[in-house]
């Protein structure tokens, strides 16, 4: 139980990943699928930040830092920053795709967006 509580963020990450994947698998609406993708993305960001956390660490900024002994890991935060911007770029592009598809096909239902098959 204690171990479970201690790894709470990872449990949340797992839950969020599966909520996102579930949205991608079970939803028909393209925008909803992209929201699920974005949830997945956020979950990954949370995972990255959570693995860099150290018990009672402080943020890795030396300006006005309180006199603590250790800091949380900076690398994962840097990676997460990159991942966030990549995520928003991807999302913006895919939402534009969805808008054009709606303009051309008249639907965003994923079952009807299948002119390319076979």
């Amino acid at each position, binding site marked *: 139980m204690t171990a479970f509580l201690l790894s709470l963020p990872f449990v949340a990450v797992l839950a969020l990943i599966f909520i996102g994947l579930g949205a991608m698998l079970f939803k028909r609406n393209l925008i909803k699928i992209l929201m699920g993708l974005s949830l997945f993305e956020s979950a990954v960001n949370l995972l990255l930040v959570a693995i860099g956390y150290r018990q009672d660490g402080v943020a*890795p900024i030396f300006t006005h830092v309180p006199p603590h002994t250790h800091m949380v890991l900076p690398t994962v935060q840097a990676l997460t920053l990159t991942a966030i911007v990549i995520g928003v770029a991807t999302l913006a592009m895919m939402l534009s795709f969805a808008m054009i598809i709606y303009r051309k096909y008249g639907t965003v239902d994923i079952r009807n967006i299948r002119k390319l098959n076979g």
Partner: protein
Amino acid sequence: MRPTLFIGILLILFSGLIHIATDLSFGQPATTDLDDYFLRHAQEHTGANNVVTSVVFDFRAFDTLGEATVLFTAVLGVGILFRKLHPGEEYEHD
């Protein structure tokens, strides 16, 4: 039929990925030599107080270039999607 299959896939994935929650220990990273290096030497090597910034813009600046490129790509991609087509510009005849 299909939803059952999807649920099965998700369940199997879950049973595998549950290791993320059970095996990783929150708050106690196993090895930290790379980050300890950053924390110890960031100020001396880059002169930046914010270690995250010094990682983003010095130690791993190439990632940042790539990331800026991704944003540029997205801008170009969105622009290319919403561009004005020339009159009579048509690609697919069938």
